[in-house]
């Protein structure tokens, strides 16, 4: 702090990206991360662990279906979303995202349907409305592994594009040195995988094998996150952005950053490494993925581009703040309840 310069009057602009944006980047990150976890069993045939893949698929689907709502809500003119398609501009990552996101969600839904068809068909035998809906969705119910693999490959491309655009969209903003790092998309991806594995741990029940699989994903993703953040701070992606991240961690938000480091990164990493406390490890990894985005987006917008000091982070209670966050969570719970109601209980799933 330069004591020779004293600000007398300061003005701050309100953050243009609201907590809705944090929610969108959080749940789409979880979706893409969890989708990747399904690939070894469902597409690549590297792993026989169908249970872990199924849990990750449920995470990918439920979060993927909720994501566009959070994104629309962050627009201050949501009813003009069609302008993206009528007036799209090729130079804007956000414009590309408006094509990548629906492609990903559509393909993911198809992929999920192909993977879950046999389960839906079994559920269709139950009497009552849930059985009837499951029957309608199941079609013939015959397993189509080749179709699932083919669609899985295409979905993987769409997922990669979503991961690329969500990271690049933020990383290209040179006006915010904190965001202007080529490593930012990497951390979004790794924290997304960690959060996806964490949420899948909550879906997987008490089975040892899938827990082990998900623990492996979890610690690998968290270890990569830690290494990437370290490389970022050491200036691998530029000294300006390294300085900005260090300043966020030590000057503007030391407590929040410390909490993220301890509870969002190190503790779940240790728990995952020792295969302990899956529910706690899962919940911590999920909150770690959220906290990281909160710090980058909301605290990042609190750093004045030109002026002195730090504007701070304010969370309103209304739809633009806390209510929005709770609303997205509620929407996800609804989707998760609807989807799991159509499927067999986890205990009956073949490993």
């Amino acid at each position, binding site marked *: 702090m330069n004591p020779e310069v004293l600000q007398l009057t300061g003005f701050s*602009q309100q953050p243009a990206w609201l907590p809705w944006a944090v929610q969108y980047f959080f749940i789409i990150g979880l979706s893409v991360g969890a989708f990747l976890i399904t690939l070894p069993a469902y597409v690549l045939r590297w792993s026989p662990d169908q249970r872990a893949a199924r849990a990750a698929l449920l995470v990918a689907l439920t979060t993927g279906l909720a994501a566009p709502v959070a994104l629309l809500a962050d627009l201050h003119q949501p009813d003009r979303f069609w*302008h993206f398609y009528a007036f799209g501009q090729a130079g804007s990552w956000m414009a590309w995202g408006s094509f990548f996101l629906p492609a990903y969600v559509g393909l993911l839904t198809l992929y999920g349907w192909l993977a879950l068809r046999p389960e839906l068909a079994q559920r269709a035998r139950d009497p009552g409305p849930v059985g009837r809906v499951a029957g309608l969705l199941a079609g013939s119910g015959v397993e189509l592994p080749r179709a699932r693999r083919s669609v899985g490959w295409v979905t993987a491309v769409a997922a990669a594009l979503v991961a690329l655009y969500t990271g690049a969209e933020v990383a290209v903003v040179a006006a915010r040195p904190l965001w202007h790092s080529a490593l930012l998309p990497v951390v979004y991806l790794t924290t997304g995988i960690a959060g996806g594995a964490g949420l899948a741990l909550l879906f997987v029940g008490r089975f040892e094998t899938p827990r082990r699989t998900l623990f492996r994903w979890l610690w690998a993703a968290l270890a990569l996150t830690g290494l990437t953040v370290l490389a970022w701070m050491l200036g691998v992606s530029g000294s300006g952005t390294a300085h900005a991240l260090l300043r966020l961690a030590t000057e503007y938000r030391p407590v929040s950053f410390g909490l993220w480091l301890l509870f969002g990164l190190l503790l779940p990493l240790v728990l995952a490494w020792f295969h302990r406390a899956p529910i706690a490890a899962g919940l911590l990894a999920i909150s770690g993925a959220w906290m990281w985005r909160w710090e980058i987006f909301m605290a990042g917008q609190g750093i004045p581009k030109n002026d*002195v000091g730090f504007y701070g982070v304010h969370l309103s209670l209304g739809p633009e703040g806390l209510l929005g966050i709770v609303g997205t969570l509620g929407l996800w719970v609804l989707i998760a309840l609807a989807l799991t109601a159509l499927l067999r209980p986890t205990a009956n799933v073949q490993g």
Partner: protein
Amino acid sequence: MDTSRRNFFKGIAVGAAATAVAPSHAATERPTGDSRQRWGMVIDLRRCIGCQACTVACGTENRTPLGSYRTVVSQYELSEGGRPRRAVLPRLCNHCEDPPCIPVCPVDATFQRADGIVLVDNTRCVGCGYCVQACPYDARFINAETGTADKCTFCAHRVDAGLLPACVETCVGGARVFGDLNDPKTAVSQLIAEHRVSRLNEQAGTEPQVRYIGLDGRLQSKVEGVPAPLRASLEEVMS
């Protein structure tokens, strides 16, 4: 009328002639400006008294919502060898030659006219806020009433009618001078020719078209110093 205003009206004669033959500005039609002109501003900080009359005039002219500003005058106390002095810094959109707020817009709602003025088509803007993030000068905000991006327009509606921007018109000390940078006879061009002028945050590479006379180097880029003890938005103060 001071020199800057007289010269401005000389310069505007060309613009007015062009406007007369240009198609009328229907709500959906974008004003294009005249490519022979390049509007810019010089702010002579030696004349600015930090009265915020420009802030108020802009808010009145453009009806910005309470607590949002298209222009403000930041004020600082700068010390040298223990001797403090007051410094002011009017801030606004720089109508950059190479504006990073434009390419990020996903729907092509923000654009630059041929005369350099950067505008937002708020019938097209989706309020995504991407341009707000991309502007290195914090010159943009989302207008809480329209839900679209908002910023200084150099009062294009007034300029097209042959008037000065409201902040220039009202400036008590005559610190804000506006005119055609392409015309060497305008007051802005002459001030630039006769004085050492500087621009904010040059390293951002955006070629800002607002220039300052008498700008302290410590205020030129991101200012590092002691924040104001009380930083309340106008909205908070009024409530």
